[in-house]
């Protein structure tokens, strides 16, 4: 992560909104977000496979994917919140707050989903688990779009 010296802070109001959670100058948040996105979409796919087959291996895949998604999603959330807190201009970008609220909602929904998927048998997925997986993926689509806007339009973390 970058140093947070007074001169850094002074430099902030110039150029593009800065990312605070960085590794060798590269923002961490965009490196971490693919993990939960892929895991939660994968869990929806394996939920659907379980719905179609009643083969328990698919529901086992789902709970591991959700667990991995939550672990990596937790790190993504942490770096995202650091970026959000670290620069006033990030917060000022219009998609930033909805992006964070939706992603945190997905995180909470997936925690509940992990408990639902830890039940035994058919009702670990059908209908509640599958429903939560669908809602999460739909919300992820919106928040990922907003996250893209933050970088490609509002230039958050882009070197000036």
């Amino acid at each position, binding site marked *: 992560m970058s140093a947070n010296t007074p001169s850094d802070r002074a430099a902030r109001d110039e150029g593009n909104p800065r990312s605070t959670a960085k590794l060798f100058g590269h923002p961490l948040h965009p490196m971490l977000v693919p993990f939960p996105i892929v895991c939660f979409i994968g869990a929806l796919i394996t939920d659907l496979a379980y719905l179609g087959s009643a083969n328990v291996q698919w529901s086992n895949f789902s709970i591991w994917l959700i667990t991995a998604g939550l672990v990596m999603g937790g790190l993504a959330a942490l770096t995202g919140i650091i970026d959000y807190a670290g620069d006033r201009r990030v917060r000022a970008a219009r998609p930033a707050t909805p992006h964070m609220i939706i992603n945190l909602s997905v995180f909470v929904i997936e925690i509940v989903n992990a408990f639902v998927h830890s039940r035994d048998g*058919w009702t670990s997925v059908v209908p509640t688990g599958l429903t939560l997986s669908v809602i999460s993926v739909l919300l992820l689509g919106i928040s990922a779009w907003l996250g893209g806007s933050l970088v490609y339009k509002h230039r958050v973390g882009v070197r000036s």
Partner: protein
Amino acid sequence: MTAARTILAGAASALVLALAGCNDGGAKFDRNSQIGPDPVLPAPQQYLVPPIHVAEVVGWGANETPTAPAGLRVQALARDLNHPRNMLALPNGDVLVVESQGPNLDPITRPKNPIVSWVQKRATGQSGAKPKGATNQITLLRDADGDGVPELRTVLLGHLNSPFGVVFADGYLYVAATDAVLRYPYALGQTRITAAPVRLTELPGGPIDHHWTKSLTLSPDGTLLYATVGSNSNITENGMEAEKNRAAVWEIDRATGRSRVFASGLRNPNSPNFYPGTNTLWVVANERDELGPNLVPDYLTSVREGGFYGWPYSYYGQHVDPRVMPQRPDLVARAIPPDYALSSHVAALGLTFYTGSSLPAKYRGGALIGEHGSWDRDELNGYKVIFVPFTNARPSAKPQDFLSGFLTADGSKVRGRPVGVTVDRTGAVLVADDAGNVVWRVSAPR
């Protein structure tokens, strides 16, 4: 930053509410309504976090014993055993104690598995207390003068694979290890078995071996053995292929080892026993978990040849379990409701019919049932030995406590947990306590 904080706090409290809100189920439910032939069955509940309550195992002080009805005496026949779970009283008066631990073969298929197995081990007292000696063995106790103090204690047979059932017949000792029925030549009075066993019949014992206790009894005519084989999961979450020939009572030809499934649909049946003077086989069975603190009651039942008792598709007859897919309406239609419910999650493992004559007359012909005790309901249930009166070879009244005090007075700690129950040559009742590591002897003063 305040916005972020508010959202985080909101999300956290919503989560806590969601988890706690689904955990009520505690509204005072009359447990007695689930004891007897026609139990009250509430609607199934599904949880985010199912209720779990295990109490710390503290063991017995030197002068502490469980409590028997007035007029009966309780002694420790043997202490410092290592997970004694079952016993056999031989015709010459020697008592065999089966000390056993599970094989721990359950694979980690989900993140939940290590958590649940930790909880269950804690409840069994297997996580804290270090084993004091060898287990998975059979110890012989010889109390020739019948005073409840054995003159001899020796290991008859060691290095067994999670044994549970043991039967003696015609110069052979039959031991149900978790993966096979073993036959050893054995003369009464012998204190050490060195002969290699014959593997009479292979039993389902792996690669997954969830309910591992295989108990054993002999048919009244002595030609057949009956072995119990519990299910390989709570409710088929390891796949139906893992359940082949499980959740069943097996019938085994004592001479040839040929076997067949005698009855099925019994989730975790244990301690098969023929009612004295009849050809009717009875078992106690542990029903399924995670449908609520008051579902599904464990039971005592007679077992009919070819009978199907519901697991996994239904419970108590036609109450369908929504967690099983594909469902089997054809099997549900012919599912037999068990005879006598014992209330939920008591974990009935031991059963014997009182055939002695030294205890008061009311005990004759009744059932003594060892209830190992609950782990998946808030209010502990079981943790005692109960007596169910029988009339005309059928259960005929509400149970009475036969041996209690396995919990401390405030119910917060566990001293011991009863498993197998048997009757010795003198008519005293023996109870294996696998958490207290004691065999208790309940006798009438002479």
